Protein backbone atom coordinates (compact mmCIF):
# COMPACT_ATOMS: atom_id res chain seq x y z
CA UNK A 1 0.00 0.00 0.00
CA UNK A 2 1.56 3.30 -1.03
CA UNK A 3 1.71 6.58 0.88
CA UNK A 4 -1.39 7.84 -0.85
CA UNK A 5 -3.59 5.06 0.37
CA UNK A 6 -2.53 4.93 3.96
CA UNK A 7 -1.11 7.44 6.32
CA UNK A 8 2.60 6.62 6.40
CA UNK A 9 3.03 8.68 9.51
CA UNK A 10 2.24 7.49 12.98
CA UNK A 11 -0.14 9.28 15.24
CA UNK A 12 2.30 11.98 16.29
CA UNK A 13 2.91 12.95 12.71
CA UNK A 14 6.29 11.22 12.64
CA UNK A 15 7.33 9.82 9.34
CA UNK A 16 7.89 6.21 10.29
CA UNK A 17 10.83 6.10 7.94
CA UNK A 18 12.69 9.07 9.39
CA UNK A 19 13.14 11.63 12.18
CA UNK A 20 10.16 13.33 13.80
CA UNK A 21 9.20 16.66 12.27
CA UNK A 22 10.29 19.74 14.22
CA UNK A 23 7.75 20.99 16.73
CA UNK A 24 6.82 24.57 16.06
CA UNK A 25 5.39 26.98 18.57
CA UNK A 26 1.78 27.97 17.90
CA UNK A 27 1.14 31.23 16.04
CA UNK A 28 0.52 34.31 18.14
CA UNK A 29 -2.98 34.75 16.75
CA UNK A 30 -4.09 31.36 18.13
CA UNK A 31 -5.79 32.93 21.09
CA UNK A 32 -6.26 29.66 22.91
CA UNK A 33 -2.53 29.49 23.53
CA UNK A 34 -1.31 33.05 23.88
CA UNK A 35 -1.40 32.94 27.68
CA UNK A 36 -0.72 29.28 28.25
CA UNK A 37 1.60 28.85 25.30
CA UNK A 38 4.00 31.65 26.20
CA UNK A 39 6.28 29.20 27.97
CA UNK A 40 6.11 26.62 25.20
CA UNK A 41 9.83 25.83 25.08
CA UNK A 42 12.30 23.39 26.56
CA UNK A 43 12.88 23.39 30.27
CA UNK A 44 16.03 25.37 30.92
CA UNK A 45 17.26 22.89 33.47
CA UNK A 46 17.31 19.13 33.75
CA UNK A 47 14.03 17.29 34.27
CA UNK A 48 14.51 16.89 38.01
CA UNK A 49 11.65 16.69 40.47
CA UNK A 50 11.92 20.27 41.74
CA UNK A 51 12.24 21.67 38.23
CA UNK A 52 9.19 19.78 37.07
CA UNK A 53 7.09 20.75 40.11
CA UNK A 54 8.05 24.39 39.70
CA UNK A 55 7.22 24.25 36.01
CA UNK A 56 3.90 22.57 36.78
CA UNK A 57 2.80 25.60 38.76
CA UNK A 58 4.45 28.46 36.91
CA UNK A 59 4.90 27.46 33.27
CA UNK A 60 3.25 24.10 32.52
CA UNK A 61 3.53 24.73 28.76
CA UNK A 62 7.24 23.90 29.11
CA UNK A 63 6.28 20.47 30.44
CA UNK A 64 3.89 20.06 27.52
CA UNK A 65 6.81 20.82 25.21
CA UNK A 66 8.97 18.20 26.92
CA UNK A 67 6.18 15.63 26.78
CA UNK A 68 6.10 16.11 23.02
CA UNK A 69 9.87 15.69 22.78
CA UNK A 70 12.35 12.95 23.53
CA UNK A 71 12.60 13.92 27.21
CA UNK A 72 9.01 12.92 27.91
CA UNK A 73 9.80 9.85 30.00
CA UNK A 74 12.03 11.66 32.56
CA UNK A 75 9.29 14.30 32.88
CA UNK A 76 6.58 11.65 33.25
CA UNK A 77 8.67 9.86 35.87
CA UNK A 78 9.14 13.10 37.80
CA UNK A 79 5.40 13.76 37.59
CA UNK A 80 4.63 10.25 38.86
CA UNK A 81 6.96 10.77 41.81
CA UNK A 82 5.29 14.14 42.46
CA UNK A 83 1.86 12.48 42.36
CA UNK A 84 2.96 9.84 44.88
CA UNK A 85 4.41 12.45 47.21
CA UNK A 86 1.51 14.87 46.98
CA UNK A 87 -1.23 12.27 47.32
CA UNK A 88 0.59 10.59 50.20
CA UNK A 89 0.88 13.93 51.99
CA UNK A 90 -2.79 14.68 51.37
CA UNK A 91 -3.70 11.21 52.61
CA UNK A 92 -1.61 11.71 55.73
CA UNK A 93 -3.46 14.92 56.54
CA UNK A 94 -6.72 13.10 55.82
CA UNK A 95 -5.67 10.43 58.31
CA UNK A 96 -4.99 12.92 61.10
CA UNK A 97 -8.75 13.20 61.65
CA UNK A 98 -9.15 9.64 62.93
CA UNK A 99 -5.51 8.88 63.71
CA UNK A 100 -4.28 5.39 64.55
CA UNK A 101 -4.15 3.07 61.56
CA UNK A 102 -5.37 5.88 59.26
CA UNK A 103 -1.97 7.56 59.54
CA UNK A 104 -0.64 5.03 57.06
CA UNK A 105 -3.82 3.50 55.62
CA UNK A 106 -5.26 6.77 54.28
CA UNK A 107 -2.08 7.83 52.39
CA UNK A 108 -1.73 4.33 50.95
CA UNK A 109 -5.34 4.27 49.79
CA UNK A 110 -5.20 7.79 48.30
CA UNK A 111 -2.04 6.99 46.32
CA UNK A 112 -3.25 3.59 45.12
CA UNK A 113 -6.75 4.88 44.37
CA UNK A 114 -5.41 7.81 42.35
CA UNK A 115 -3.17 5.62 40.23
CA UNK A 116 -5.86 3.01 39.62
CA UNK A 117 -8.35 5.74 38.65
CA UNK A 118 -5.83 7.25 36.23
CA UNK A 119 -5.02 3.89 34.65
CA UNK A 120 -8.72 3.09 34.26
CA UNK A 121 -9.34 6.40 32.49
CA UNK A 122 -6.20 6.45 30.29
CA UNK A 123 -7.64 4.44 27.35
CA UNK A 124 -10.72 6.65 27.16
CA UNK A 125 -8.55 9.81 27.33
CA UNK A 126 -6.58 8.62 24.31
CA UNK A 127 -9.68 7.64 22.34
CA UNK A 128 -11.68 10.77 23.23
CA UNK A 129 -8.73 12.90 22.14
CA UNK A 130 -8.56 11.01 18.84
CA UNK A 131 -12.32 11.32 18.33
CA UNK A 132 -11.95 15.09 18.53
CA UNK A 133 -9.32 14.98 15.80
CA UNK A 134 -6.35 15.22 18.14
CA UNK A 135 -3.12 13.51 17.08
CA UNK A 136 -1.57 12.78 20.46
CA UNK A 137 0.18 9.46 20.72
CA UNK A 138 -0.40 7.16 23.66
CA UNK A 139 2.88 8.21 25.39
CA UNK A 140 1.94 11.87 24.96
CA UNK A 141 -1.51 11.12 26.35
CA UNK A 142 0.10 9.40 29.34
CA UNK A 143 2.23 12.49 29.89
CA UNK A 144 -0.77 14.77 29.75
CA UNK A 145 -2.65 12.59 32.19
CA UNK A 146 0.31 12.65 34.56
CA UNK A 147 0.39 16.45 34.24
CA UNK A 148 -3.32 16.65 35.03
CA UNK A 149 -3.18 14.38 38.09
CA UNK A 150 0.04 15.97 39.35
CA UNK A 151 -1.55 19.42 39.39
CA UNK A 152 -4.53 18.06 41.31
CA UNK A 153 -2.12 16.49 43.80
CA UNK A 154 -0.15 19.69 44.17
CA UNK A 155 -3.28 21.69 44.88
CA UNK A 156 -4.47 19.12 47.43
CA UNK A 157 -1.15 19.56 49.23
CA UNK A 158 -1.84 23.29 49.16
CA UNK A 159 -5.16 22.66 50.87
CA UNK A 160 -3.56 20.37 53.44
CA UNK A 161 -2.99 22.99 56.18
CA UNK A 162 -6.64 24.07 55.95
CA UNK A 163 -7.83 20.48 56.12
CA UNK A 164 -5.53 19.79 59.09
CA UNK A 165 -6.97 22.73 61.02
CA UNK A 166 -10.51 21.43 60.54
CA UNK A 167 -9.43 17.85 61.25
CA UNK A 168 -8.12 18.91 64.63
CA UNK A 169 -11.10 21.07 65.54
CA UNK A 170 -14.13 19.01 64.51
CA UNK A 171 -15.54 15.54 65.14
CA UNK A 172 -18.00 15.62 62.25
CA UNK A 173 -17.18 12.89 59.69
CA UNK A 174 -19.80 14.21 57.27
CA UNK A 175 -18.37 17.73 57.45
CA UNK A 176 -14.84 16.46 56.86
CA UNK A 177 -16.09 14.38 53.96
CA UNK A 178 -17.75 17.44 52.47
CA UNK A 179 -14.55 19.44 52.95
CA UNK A 180 -12.41 16.79 51.24
CA UNK A 181 -14.92 16.55 48.41
CA UNK A 182 -14.85 20.32 47.90
CA UNK A 183 -11.04 20.42 47.88
CA UNK A 184 -10.92 17.53 45.41
CA UNK A 185 -13.39 19.18 43.06
CA UNK A 186 -11.49 22.49 43.19
CA UNK A 187 -8.25 20.67 42.37
CA UNK A 188 -10.03 18.79 39.60
CA UNK A 189 -11.34 22.04 38.09
CA UNK A 190 -7.83 23.50 37.88
CA UNK A 191 -6.56 20.21 36.52
CA UNK A 192 -9.24 20.25 33.82
CA UNK A 193 -8.28 23.79 32.86
CA UNK A 194 -4.65 22.69 32.48
CA UNK A 195 -5.63 19.55 30.58
CA UNK A 196 -7.76 21.44 28.07
CA UNK A 197 -5.09 24.10 27.52
CA UNK A 198 -2.33 21.50 27.18
CA UNK A 199 -4.26 19.28 24.80
CA UNK A 200 -5.21 22.30 22.68
CA UNK A 201 -1.53 23.24 22.51
CA UNK A 202 -0.40 19.72 21.59
CA UNK A 203 -3.14 19.09 19.04
CA UNK A 204 -3.18 22.65 17.67
CA UNK A 205 -6.99 22.59 18.01
CA UNK A 206 -9.59 22.55 20.77
CA UNK A 207 -10.37 19.05 22.01
CA UNK A 208 -13.97 19.32 23.14
CA UNK A 209 -14.59 15.71 24.14
CA UNK A 210 -12.04 16.04 26.92
CA UNK A 211 -14.63 17.95 28.90
CA UNK A 212 -16.74 14.78 28.90
CA UNK A 213 -13.68 12.73 29.82
CA UNK A 214 -12.87 15.01 32.75
CA UNK A 215 -16.33 14.39 34.21
CA UNK A 216 -15.77 10.66 33.75
CA UNK A 217 -12.47 10.93 35.65
CA UNK A 218 -14.16 12.81 38.49
CA UNK A 219 -16.90 10.19 38.78
CA UNK A 220 -14.33 7.38 38.78
CA UNK A 221 -12.31 9.02 41.57
CA UNK A 222 -15.44 9.64 43.63
CA UNK A 223 -16.47 5.99 43.25
CA UNK A 224 -12.90 4.93 44.05
CA UNK A 225 -13.10 6.88 47.31
CA UNK A 226 -16.21 4.89 48.21
CA UNK A 227 -14.61 1.60 47.17
CA UNK A 228 -11.60 2.29 49.40
CA UNK A 229 -13.59 3.58 52.40
CA UNK A 230 -13.15 4.35 55.16
CA UNK A 231 -10.70 7.15 54.35
CA UNK A 232 -11.68 9.55 57.12
CA UNK A 233 -13.37 7.58 59.88
CA UNK A 234 -11.83 4.87 62.04
CA UNK A 235 -12.01 1.50 60.25
CA UNK A 236 -14.31 -0.91 62.05
CA UNK A 237 -13.66 -4.15 60.15
CA UNK A 238 -10.23 -4.21 58.57
CA UNK A 239 -8.83 -1.63 56.19
CA UNK A 240 -11.73 -1.78 53.73
CA UNK A 241 -15.45 -1.71 54.46
CA UNK A 242 -16.11 -4.52 51.98
CA UNK A 243 -19.72 -3.65 51.18
CA UNK A 244 -20.47 -2.47 47.64
CA UNK A 245 -22.25 0.84 47.20
CA UNK A 246 -22.59 3.54 44.58
CA UNK A 247 -20.88 6.68 45.92
CA UNK A 248 -24.04 8.78 46.03
CA UNK A 249 -25.88 6.05 47.95
CA UNK A 250 -23.02 5.95 50.43
CA UNK A 251 -23.01 9.75 50.89
CA UNK A 252 -26.75 9.96 51.41
CA UNK A 253 -26.66 7.14 53.96
CA UNK A 254 -23.83 8.91 55.83
CA UNK A 255 -25.76 12.16 55.89
CA UNK A 256 -28.90 10.44 57.13
CA UNK A 257 -26.94 8.85 59.97
Amino acid at each position, binding site marked *: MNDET*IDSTNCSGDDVTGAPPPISAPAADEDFSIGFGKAYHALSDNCGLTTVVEALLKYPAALVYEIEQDRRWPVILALVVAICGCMATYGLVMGTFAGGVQYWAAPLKVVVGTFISAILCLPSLYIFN*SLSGGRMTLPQTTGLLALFVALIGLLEVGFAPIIWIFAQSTNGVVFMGFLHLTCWIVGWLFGVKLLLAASTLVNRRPVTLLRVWSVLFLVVTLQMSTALRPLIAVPANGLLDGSKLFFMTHWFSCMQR
Partner: protein
Amino acid sequence: MTSKQERRFWWIDLDPGALCRAGQFLDVAVDNPATQVRILSRMCLTIAVCAALYGAVFGVWRSPEQAVYAALKLPLLLFAVVLASSVVNTMLAQVLDVPLSLATVSLMMLTGMAVASVVMASLAPVVFFFTLQMPPPDPAVVGLPTAHPAVGPSLRIFRQLLVMHIAIIGFAGITGNLRLYATLRKLAPSASLARRVMVAWLIVSGFVGCELSWLFSPFICKPNYPPHLITRTYWEGNFYEHLYHALTGG
Protein backbone atom coordinates in the same frame (compact mmCIF):
# COMPACT_ATOMS: atom_id res chain seq x y z
CA MET B 1 6.06 3.30 2.26
CA THR B 2 7.96 0.31 0.83
CA SER B 3 6.49 -3.16 1.14
CA LYS B 4 9.16 -4.08 3.72
CA GLN B 5 8.31 -1.06 5.85
CA GLU B 6 4.63 -1.80 5.40
CA ARG B 7 5.12 -5.30 6.78
CA ARG B 8 7.23 -3.95 9.63
CA PHE B 9 4.71 -1.25 10.59
CA TRP B 10 1.54 -3.25 10.02
CA TRP B 11 0.43 -2.36 13.54
CA ILE B 12 -0.02 1.28 12.53
CA ASP B 13 -3.06 0.25 10.54
CA LEU B 14 -4.63 -1.11 13.71
CA ASP B 15 -4.02 2.04 15.79
CA PRO B 16 -7.39 2.84 17.38
CA GLY B 17 -6.48 6.52 17.55
CA ALA B 18 -5.99 6.69 13.79
CA LEU B 19 -9.28 4.85 13.31
CA CYS B 20 -11.13 7.34 15.52
CA ARG B 21 -9.82 10.19 13.43
CA ALA B 22 -11.31 8.16 10.55
CA GLY B 23 -10.14 10.71 8.09
CA GLN B 24 -7.65 10.04 5.41
CA PHE B 25 -7.88 6.31 4.95
CA LEU B 26 -11.68 6.32 4.60
CA ASP B 27 -11.62 9.15 2.09
CA VAL B 28 -9.00 7.30 0.06
CA ALA B 29 -10.82 3.96 0.28
CA VAL B 30 -14.00 5.46 -1.10
CA ASP B 31 -12.13 6.48 -4.27
CA ASN B 32 -9.91 3.42 -4.46
CA PRO B 33 -11.72 0.05 -4.53
CA ALA B 34 -8.36 -1.76 -4.32
CA THR B 35 -7.96 -0.65 -0.71
CA GLN B 36 -11.53 -1.40 0.31
CA VAL B 37 -10.97 -5.09 0.99
CA ARG B 38 -8.01 -4.37 3.24
CA ILE B 39 -9.81 -1.65 5.15
CA LEU B 40 -12.93 -3.83 5.35
CA SER B 41 -10.94 -6.59 7.00
CA ARG B 42 -9.44 -4.13 9.48
CA MET B 43 -12.84 -2.79 10.42
CA CYS B 44 -14.22 -6.29 10.93
CA LEU B 45 -11.25 -7.25 13.10
CA THR B 46 -11.62 -4.08 15.16
CA ILE B 47 -15.33 -4.69 15.70
CA ALA B 48 -14.74 -8.34 16.60
CA VAL B 49 -12.06 -7.57 19.19
CA CYS B 50 -13.29 -4.33 20.72
CA ALA B 51 -16.99 -5.19 20.84
CA ALA B 52 -16.15 -8.59 22.32
CA LEU B 53 -14.13 -6.86 25.04
CA TYR B 54 -17.04 -4.61 25.94
CA GLY B 55 -19.47 -7.49 25.64
CA ALA B 56 -17.50 -9.42 28.25
CA VAL B 57 -17.76 -6.47 30.61
CA PHE B 58 -21.47 -6.20 29.76
CA GLY B 59 -22.28 -9.69 30.96
CA VAL B 60 -19.73 -10.18 33.74
CA TRP B 61 -22.00 -8.90 36.53
CA ARG B 62 -24.35 -11.84 36.01
CA SER B 63 -21.66 -14.50 35.68
CA PRO B 64 -18.51 -15.38 33.67
CA GLU B 65 -20.69 -17.59 31.49
CA GLN B 66 -22.94 -14.65 30.61
CA ALA B 67 -19.82 -12.57 29.93
CA VAL B 68 -18.76 -15.10 27.29
CA TYR B 69 -22.24 -15.08 25.70
CA ALA B 70 -22.31 -11.28 25.59
CA ALA B 71 -18.75 -11.16 24.19
CA LEU B 72 -19.90 -13.42 21.33
CA LYS B 73 -23.16 -11.58 20.67
CA LEU B 74 -22.17 -7.89 20.76
CA PRO B 75 -19.90 -8.02 17.67
CA LEU B 76 -22.56 -10.07 15.87
CA LEU B 77 -25.15 -7.44 16.80
CA LEU B 78 -23.06 -4.66 15.26
CA PHE B 79 -22.50 -6.68 12.07
CA ALA B 80 -26.21 -7.47 11.94
CA VAL B 81 -27.11 -3.76 12.17
CA VAL B 82 -24.82 -3.02 9.21
CA LEU B 83 -26.23 -5.95 7.20
CA ALA B 84 -29.83 -5.02 7.93
CA SER B 85 -29.56 -1.31 7.23
CA SER B 86 -26.91 -0.87 4.53
CA VAL B 87 -29.32 -1.44 1.61
CA VAL B 88 -31.96 0.99 2.88
CA ASN B 89 -29.25 3.50 3.82
CA THR B 90 -27.88 3.32 0.29
CA MET B 91 -31.34 3.96 -1.12
CA LEU B 92 -31.93 6.84 1.29
CA ALA B 93 -28.62 8.41 0.30
CA GLN B 94 -29.52 8.17 -3.37
CA VAL B 95 -33.01 9.61 -2.98
CA LEU B 96 -31.45 12.43 -0.96
CA ASP B 97 -29.23 13.22 -3.96
CA VAL B 98 -26.03 11.79 -2.52
CA PRO B 99 -25.08 9.07 -5.02
CA LEU B 100 -23.25 6.44 -2.98
CA SER B 101 -22.79 2.81 -3.93
CA LEU B 102 -23.77 -0.06 -1.65
CA ALA B 103 -20.08 -0.91 -1.19
CA THR B 104 -19.27 2.62 -0.09
CA VAL B 105 -22.20 2.82 2.31
CA SER B 106 -21.39 -0.59 3.80
CA LEU B 107 -17.75 0.39 4.25
CA MET B 108 -18.75 3.66 5.91
CA MET B 109 -21.21 1.93 8.22
CA LEU B 110 -18.64 -0.67 9.18
CA THR B 111 -16.18 2.12 9.91
CA GLY B 112 -18.76 3.84 12.09
CA MET B 113 -19.36 0.61 13.97
CA ALA B 114 -15.61 0.08 14.31
CA VAL B 115 -15.21 3.53 15.86
CA ALA B 116 -18.16 2.80 18.15
CA SER B 117 -16.50 -0.47 19.18
CA VAL B 118 -13.24 1.32 19.96
CA VAL B 119 -15.10 3.89 22.09
CA MET B 120 -16.84 1.09 23.98
CA ALA B 121 -13.57 -0.76 24.49
CA SER B 122 -11.88 2.40 25.80
CA LEU B 123 -14.65 2.75 28.39
CA ALA B 124 -14.60 -0.96 29.28
CA PRO B 125 -12.09 -0.55 32.17
CA VAL B 126 -14.25 2.15 33.78
CA VAL B 127 -17.43 0.16 33.25
CA PHE B 128 -15.79 -2.95 34.67
CA PHE B 129 -14.76 -0.98 37.75
CA PHE B 130 -18.31 0.26 38.30
CA THR B 131 -19.68 -3.24 37.73
CA LEU B 132 -17.36 -4.55 40.45
CA GLN B 133 -18.73 -1.88 42.79
CA MET B 134 -22.27 -3.17 42.43
CA PRO B 135 -23.55 -5.93 44.73
CA PRO B 136 -23.49 -9.24 42.84
CA PRO B 137 -26.77 -10.99 41.96
CA ASP B 138 -28.26 -13.14 44.69
CA PRO B 139 -27.87 -16.78 43.56
CA ALA B 140 -30.87 -17.77 45.70
CA VAL B 141 -33.34 -15.94 43.41
CA VAL B 142 -32.64 -18.03 40.29
CA GLY B 143 -35.88 -19.66 39.23
CA LEU B 144 -38.14 -17.28 41.17
CA PRO B 145 -40.70 -15.17 39.30
CA THR B 146 -39.65 -11.59 38.55
CA ALA B 147 -42.40 -10.19 40.80
CA HIS B 148 -41.12 -12.14 43.84
CA PRO B 149 -39.95 -9.77 46.63
CA ALA B 150 -36.63 -11.58 47.01
CA VAL B 151 -35.74 -10.75 43.42
CA GLY B 152 -36.24 -7.00 43.97
CA PRO B 153 -32.80 -5.90 45.22
CA SER B 154 -30.87 -7.78 42.52
CA LEU B 155 -33.35 -6.68 39.87
CA ARG B 156 -32.80 -3.07 40.89
CA ILE B 157 -29.04 -3.41 40.39
CA PHE B 158 -29.67 -5.18 37.08
CA ARG B 159 -31.78 -2.26 35.82
CA GLN B 160 -29.21 0.34 36.93
CA LEU B 161 -26.46 -1.51 35.11
CA LEU B 162 -28.63 -1.94 32.04
CA VAL B 163 -29.33 1.79 31.88
CA MET B 164 -25.61 2.52 32.24
CA HIS B 165 -24.71 0.11 29.43
CA ILE B 166 -27.46 1.42 27.14
CA ALA B 167 -26.22 4.98 27.71
CA ILE B 168 -22.63 4.03 26.90
CA ILE B 169 -23.52 1.97 23.84
CA GLY B 170 -25.82 4.72 22.63
CA PHE B 171 -23.08 7.34 23.11
CA ALA B 172 -20.54 5.12 21.35
CA GLY B 173 -22.91 4.36 18.50
CA ILE B 174 -23.84 7.99 17.87
CA THR B 175 -20.21 9.12 18.19
CA GLY B 176 -18.99 6.39 15.87
CA ASN B 177 -21.51 7.19 13.19
CA LEU B 178 -21.03 10.96 13.52
CA ARG B 179 -17.36 10.41 12.67
CA LEU B 180 -18.57 9.56 9.18
CA TYR B 181 -19.92 13.03 8.66
CA ALA B 182 -16.56 14.43 7.48
CA THR B 183 -16.37 11.83 4.71
CA LEU B 184 -20.04 12.24 3.88
CA ARG B 185 -19.52 15.97 3.58
CA LYS B 186 -16.81 15.40 0.97
CA LEU B 187 -19.01 12.99 -0.99
CA ALA B 188 -22.23 14.99 -0.85
CA PRO B 189 -22.96 17.98 -3.12
CA SER B 190 -23.69 20.17 -0.08
CA ALA B 191 -23.42 20.24 3.69
CA SER B 192 -27.20 20.22 4.16
CA LEU B 193 -27.57 17.07 2.05
CA ALA B 194 -24.78 15.42 4.01
CA ARG B 195 -26.56 16.31 7.27
CA ARG B 196 -29.85 14.87 6.02
CA VAL B 197 -28.20 11.64 5.00
CA MET B 198 -26.39 11.45 8.37
CA VAL B 199 -29.62 11.97 10.30
CA ALA B 200 -31.42 9.39 8.14
CA TRP B 201 -28.69 6.83 8.73
CA LEU B 202 -28.71 7.48 12.48
CA ILE B 203 -32.48 7.02 12.65
CA VAL B 204 -32.44 3.82 10.61
CA SER B 205 -29.47 2.33 12.46
CA GLY B 206 -30.98 3.27 15.81
CA PHE B 207 -34.37 1.82 14.87
CA VAL B 208 -32.86 -1.41 13.58
CA GLY B 209 -30.31 -1.56 16.39
CA CYS B 210 -32.94 -1.42 19.13
CA GLU B 211 -34.88 -4.31 17.63
CA LEU B 212 -31.80 -6.40 16.93
CA SER B 213 -30.48 -5.82 20.45
CA TRP B 214 -33.86 -7.08 21.72
CA LEU B 215 -33.56 -10.22 19.60
CA PHE B 216 -29.96 -10.81 20.63
CA SER B 217 -30.82 -10.40 24.33
CA PRO B 218 -29.92 -11.11 27.04
CA PHE B 219 -26.56 -9.40 27.42
CA ILE B 220 -26.64 -9.05 31.20
CA CYS B 221 -29.50 -11.48 31.99
CA LYS B 222 -31.97 -10.90 34.78
CA PRO B 223 -30.82 -12.28 38.14
CA ASN B 224 -33.74 -14.71 38.43
CA TYR B 225 -32.88 -16.45 35.16
CA PRO B 226 -29.88 -18.74 34.65
CA PRO B 227 -27.27 -17.39 32.22
CA HIS B 228 -28.29 -18.21 28.67
CA LEU B 229 -27.46 -17.31 25.09
CA ILE B 230 -30.80 -16.27 23.57
CA THR B 231 -34.24 -15.68 25.09
CA ARG B 232 -36.55 -17.48 22.68
CA THR B 233 -39.69 -15.74 23.96
CA TYR B 234 -38.30 -12.40 22.77
CA TRP B 235 -38.70 -13.66 19.19
CA GLU B 236 -42.46 -13.74 19.73
CA GLY B 237 -42.70 -9.96 20.01
CA ASN B 238 -40.57 -6.94 19.31
CA PHE B 239 -38.75 -4.22 21.20
CA TYR B 240 -41.24 -1.47 20.35
CA GLU B 241 -44.29 -3.51 21.43
CA HIS B 242 -42.54 -4.26 24.72
CA LEU B 243 -41.64 -0.59 25.16
CA TYR B 244 -45.24 0.43 24.48
CA HIS B 245 -46.56 -2.03 27.05
CA ALA B 246 -43.91 -0.96 29.56
CA LEU B 247 -44.84 2.72 29.13
CA THR B 248 -48.60 2.20 29.19
CA GLY B 249 -48.58 -0.44 31.92
CA GLY B 250 -50.30 -2.92 29.64
